[in-house]
């Protein structure tokens, strides 16, 4: 199989980000220029795991487990390793980066949630929490891939922040993790959009999961919270979307998004923070209270709400003003 999907790379590997830096006379990405020891440690962890993405495969001794049973075993192991969500689908060319070749025919998705009360704790807190979760995802994917190679005798390759050829959102959608939201992230009924993924591609025969629907695409049409909160005005109005495979995709304007999430020296996570699906489906009263208090804090700090129509603006110290009130 040869991949057909273009994947936006991070940092200086993205030509768009390079162009924006050049236009502004910057040599480095302001977001990454900031030094946070805890974040550096998490990044170091997934870089340490990069050489372990792939490896030698033990002889396949055969197994009497059916694909469905094997899928159940893999899910149990992933959860044991710390995954909050696990799903799997057949690998397709559109899930793989352009020109990537592989013999693998399955992709396993895992995800770990971010702690909502932690991410609301300020720009440093959300930054470190996101990187912590990414590092944990890298550990889980590495462990799963190693298990498949060494104990089950099948090829397996981990995909995470230390290296990936997988287009995340379509895989997560097909694996039943959730529906695509207007902010461009997948929304899960239990964790909202506040989670991070990693993947394993493999030759191990599995049983496919299926997409889920719980009304997100319809709800997003009328909910203005993320697009009003976006300090870069990067989320399009409800009536501007493209369709891919029958799904509405309100493509985020990445050039605008970068002005808030890469060209400022702090982490932007606002579109996820204000997404009501953090509590809407799971019915968690405590999370709902935190969510409502956060929106109230934003309103009190002078930031726009869906009703007032006044969005925050890039250049203000947005996150400092809306986080860390507790």
């Amino acid at each position, binding site marked *: 199989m040869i991949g*057909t999907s273009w994947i936006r790379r991070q940092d200086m*590997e993205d*030509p*768009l980000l390079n162009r924006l830096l050049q236009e502004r006379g910057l040599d480095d990405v302001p977001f990454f220029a900031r030094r946070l020891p805890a974040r550096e440690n998490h990044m170091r962890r997934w870089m340490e795991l990069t050489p372990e993405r792939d490896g030698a495969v033990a002889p396949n001794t055969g197994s009497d487990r059916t694909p469905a049973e094997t899928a159940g075993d893999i899910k149990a192991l992933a959860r044991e390793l710390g995954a909050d969500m696990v799903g799997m689908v057949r690998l397709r060319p*559109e899930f793989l980066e352009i020109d990537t070749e592989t013999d693998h025919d399955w992709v396993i998705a895992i995800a770990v949630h971010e702690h909502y009360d932690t991410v609301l704790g300020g720009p440093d807190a959300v930054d470190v929490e996101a990187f912590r979760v990414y590092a944990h995802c890298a550990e889980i994917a590495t462990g799963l891939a190693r298990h498949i190679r060494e104990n089950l005798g099948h090829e397996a390759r981990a995909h995470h922040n230390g290296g990936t050829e997988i287009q995340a959102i379509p895989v997560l959608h097909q694996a039943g993790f959730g529906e695509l939201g207007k902010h461009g992230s997948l929304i899960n009924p239990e964790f909202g959009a506040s989670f991070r993924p990693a993947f394993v591609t493999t030759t191990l025969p599995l049983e496919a999961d299926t997409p889920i629907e719980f009304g997100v695409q319809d709800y997003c049409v009328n909910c203005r919270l993320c697009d009003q909160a976006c300090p870069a005005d990067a989320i399009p109005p409800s009536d501007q979307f*493209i369709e891919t495979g029958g799904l509405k995709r309100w493509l985020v304007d990445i050039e605008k998004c970068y002005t808030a999430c890469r060209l400022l020296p702090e982490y932007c996570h606002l579109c996820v923070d204000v997404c009501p699906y953090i509590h809407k489906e799971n019915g968690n009263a405590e999370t709902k209270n935190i969510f409502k208090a956060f929106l109230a804090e934003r309103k009190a700090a002078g930031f726009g709400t869906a009703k007032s129509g006044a969005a925050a603006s890039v250049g203000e110290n947005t996150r400092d003003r809306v986080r860390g009130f507790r």
Partner: protein
Amino acid sequence: MSTVKDLADLALAMLDGGETRQASLLGTEFSIRYTGPDPAPEISADVCTPETVRLTPEWEGACTLKVMAPLNVLEISWNQGEAVRIMAFSRGSWEDALKSAIANAPR
């Protein structure tokens, strides 16, 4: 499945020598903009690798093509004889609309 080059070539063909065009194709509102030499140099089938992008931060493209349908679904930059650099690319039904428009264009 169409490649980036296939789609970019179609978009350039829609311009028919002009720099911009706005049109409704099969119900999709398109806005296509090209900047660069006329005629546009051939778009390479090769996509610039992330490693090359990282190693050439000062790179500048003489040509840019941006397709809005109605959002930014394809944006590339290139120089003659070099691999193309993708700024944005999202697959979707706009691809079929573009292909149909070309197929049905008067000759």
